[in-house]
């Protein structure tokens, strides 16, 4: 039953479990060079039923699987808010140097000065870019950074006799991780309304008054907003929050638009996280590993996780574990070191002017696409004639097209037929496409994307069936996701 006939006559790739051959193996081991010690019955297990296949079949299996993926390398991948930029291979080369990849995390500091130096330099680079006082590299991903920074803010308030500050405010367009991170910190979330993609300052004040300013811990913002807009009143917003005695938390998902142009510390952010896999070109890897360093103000710094990488007076580097006010550890060892090597490499390749140019080009590319598509794909916030540009990404609610009898999913699936990864959908607002081209696409690639999008619009007028039934030429037809959730099958059973 394994090999259903597939579109394009390509067979479905069998699972490794279906390829299992008793006695096969993909790699061998040297003979045991010590005497055997019997394993007592009380601890011995009965073995694990893993599949076994030969080495060439291993190569074939994963090569076939890789062939069934869209990727930044091979496809236009304008996934809004995810910053799917080019992943330079010098980064991979760097992380694989044995002098980095073969270090044990518990080695003495005199053995690992190079690694500590790299961490220290990464720390100071990220401090400079944020305009904030101190960075911790420990969080393993953006959401983990949010969690860590919120813990830091709560620890600060508890230490300052204000443990009741447990309410975190967030715009109604916030990333889903924002409220989820709050819950994990024992904080509750109150939504603040947005109008046309911008925080409604009046509502912000109302919510603060409603919950009581003395109970507010932080306002979590994203700037540029999740709608892809620079918020012109960001400073007023920060003043309102600070006026309530609370902290401003910046979700740094959209830092690609700010690099070298604006430092979050300058508009009043007290704490923020980076996503190195978005802003600093570390690969997304099909969903990780990422890294989520956080930056905070001087007053919050004593609460950062331990250990912290430091430089001694003699220029050597060490790990500081003596921070009595620290929230503790949020991850084992020092964080995603291998990812941070890639981050250091990227920032060092760009240099200060390069980073600024990254932000400029990311914003230029997004506006270029928006201008070229706006006549066909309705854009609620984009009006260049009135000076209303987008930042590094833009939102389209293609109502005119939807009114012709297609759904957003139809459009997205048709894009797959053209080799374009669909944008982020249904977020931050309903029925929207959020497009983020990033700075690394060529003009040729941008123009091709425009052609695809206009072609799909054309098809909706001319031959709507090919859009409604899309994807037509990809490996598979639409997956039954509802059925998958109703009766979840998460593991293979013969």
């Amino acid at each position, binding site marked *: 039953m394994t090999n259903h006939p597939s579109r394009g006559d390509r067979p479905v790739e069998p699972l490794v479990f279906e390829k299992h051959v008793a006695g096969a193996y993909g790699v061998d081991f040297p003979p045991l060079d010590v005497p055997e010690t019997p394993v007592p019955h009380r601890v011995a297990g009965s073995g694990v039923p893993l599949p076994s296949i030969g080495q060439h079949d291993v190569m074939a299996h994963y090569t076939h699987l890789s062939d069934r993926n869209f*990727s930044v390398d091979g496809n236009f991948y304008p996934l809004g808010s995810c910053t799917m930029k080019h992943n330079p291979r010098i980064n991979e080369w760097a992380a694989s140097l044995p002098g980095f990849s073969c270090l044990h995390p*518990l080695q003495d500091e005199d053995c690992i000065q190079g690694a500590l130096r790299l961490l220290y330099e990464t720390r100071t680079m990220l401090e400079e870019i944020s305009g904030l006082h101190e960075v911790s590299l420990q969080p393993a991903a953006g959401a983990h950074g949010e969690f860590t920074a919120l813990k830091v803010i709560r620890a600060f308030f508890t230490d300052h006799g204000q443990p009741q500050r447990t309410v975190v405010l967030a715009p109604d367009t916030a990333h889903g991780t924002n409220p989820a991170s709050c819950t994990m910190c024992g904080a509750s979330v109150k939504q603040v309304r947005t109008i046309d993609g911008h925080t409604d300052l009046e509502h912000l004040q109302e919510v603060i008054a409603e919950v009581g300013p003395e109970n507010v811990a932080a306002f979590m913002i994203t700037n540029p907003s999740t709608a892809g807009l620079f918020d012109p009143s960001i400073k007023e917003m920060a003043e309102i929050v600070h006026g309530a005695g609370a902290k401003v938390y910046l979700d740094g998902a959209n830092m690609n638009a700010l690099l070298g142009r604006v430092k979050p510390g300058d508009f009043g952010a007290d704490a923020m996280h980076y996503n190195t896999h978005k802003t600093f070109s570390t690969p*997304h*890897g099909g969903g990780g*590993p990422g890294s989520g360093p956080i930056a905070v103000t001087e007053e919050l710094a004593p609460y950062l996780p331990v250990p912290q990488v430091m430089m001694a007076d003699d220029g050597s580097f060490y790990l500081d574990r003596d921070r009595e006010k620290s929230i503790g550890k949020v991850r084992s060892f020092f964080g995603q070191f291998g990812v941070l090597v890639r981050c250091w490499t990227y920032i060092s390749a760009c240099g*200060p002017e390069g980073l600024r140019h990254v932000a400029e080009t990311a914003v230029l590319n997004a506006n270029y696409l928006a201008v070229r598509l706006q006549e066909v794909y309705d854009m609620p916030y984009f009006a260049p004639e009135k000076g209303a*540009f987008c930042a590094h990404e833009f939102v389209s609610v293609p109502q005119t097209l939807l009114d012709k009898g297609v759904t957003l999913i139809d459009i997205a699936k048709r894009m797959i037929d053209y080799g374009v990864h669909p944008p982020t959908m249904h977020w931050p607002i309903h029925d929207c496409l959020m497009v983020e081209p990033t700075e690394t696409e060529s003009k040729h690639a941008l123009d091709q994307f425009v052609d695809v999008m206009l072609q799909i619009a054309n098809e909706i007028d001319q031959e709507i069936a090919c859009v409604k039934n899309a994807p037509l030429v990809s490996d598979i037809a639409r997956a039954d*996701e509802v059925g*998958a959730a109703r009766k979840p099958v998460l593991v293979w059973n013969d």
Partner: protein
Amino acid sequence: MDYTQITDAQHEEMLSIIGIDHVDRLFDVIPESIRCQEGLDLSPPQSELELQRSLTEMASHNVGAHNMVCFMGCGAYDHFYPALIDQLISRGEFLTSYTPYQAEASQGTLQAFFEFQTQIAQVTGLEIANSSLYDGATAVAEAAILAVNTTRRHTVLVASTMHPEYLAVLRTCLADLHVNITMLTATNGKVLPETVREEMSDDIAAVIVQSPNIWGQIEDWDGCFEVTHEDAKTLAVAVFNPIACGLLKTPGECGADLAAGEGQPLGNALNFGGPYLGLLAAKEKFVRKMPGRLVGMTKDEDGRRVFCLTLQTREQHIRGAKATSNVCTNQGLIALRASMFMTTVGREGLTEVASHCWHKAHYLAEQITAIDGWELTFDGDFFNEFTVNCPVDVTHIVDSGKERGVLVGVAANGRRMRKLSEGNELIIAVTEKRTRHEMDALVSLLKELST
């Protein structure tokens, strides 16, 4: 270089299509007062050749398992992995894709994660597994939170023999959730079932026991979890080493409800502590409480077997504050490495690796304890790691080892071990990579240092 591709001429052309004269117009909305007035204070850009030079230079200031003989463990192990993993994982189709939200454009990643989930279920002897978490420490914390949310109880019992870093992370993660952590004291390096019984009450969400534990001792999961289940609601959480499962009883065989562990030994480099791989497996009844990504098998419209992300209503991007966890990005590529490793070594291979670890560790322990003054700290069963009491200052032994190109092990009294001990113990790990020659050399060194 900054990896942009728009030329000056194209830049001008694009500006004119947008209808502006300068790219600064796109940033005009940002108030003047918060714009950077000066450039970033960073080093000038380096070309790729310069980067290769400076990175090589920086890496040369480190010594590690590539140029030392490594007997260090305690949560990070110097295992062998086949060369094909680095080759396959470098394929851009894996490396540069993202979370497989679009099933039709991501069947490769989705099928690989489904296989990973199945393999982790097979290795742990449990029914389901997710497609990874950040690391072993956060996996333990997520398991504890799952238990608290499922049982609506507020105390977890944790073996004092669990890795101190995992305990530290657990403390941080539970600190604001009104959950008490009660430590289970150890007797002769292990937690006794009687000790679990003494601490049981009607508010225990979970009993968490790591085996092999931080001292390398194999815990009595059977006994501890039997006591745990005398209360029908309390969850038994096994913190496991996936390599050990090739030889020893698995969490499932010992009655665990959840298994959390560090997947680094499965095909991943030491990487100075990260990126690593959090593993979480469970009995099927906890499926809707699991944190992180889950991949399910389904059919497409033509009836073809396909895979997609599933049960996303558990997750933060749908459920916000009520999500089972805030996890979004996980450790996809590292999970893929682990899956490739398990596929390549296969079922006999995993047992072979585990057996080599066992036999070599026992050989070395026997040789070391044959030296005058050296003895095992505990007399219980161990797997690939054991603890010895040193007759001379352990710091001196560690330092002398470094001079001879040997990372002799981890001193239990070191700051890095978070004051695990005040004593003079050395924790020594032996993987299949260590040769008899290397072990004999270590024994000679210890002999020399103790006279």
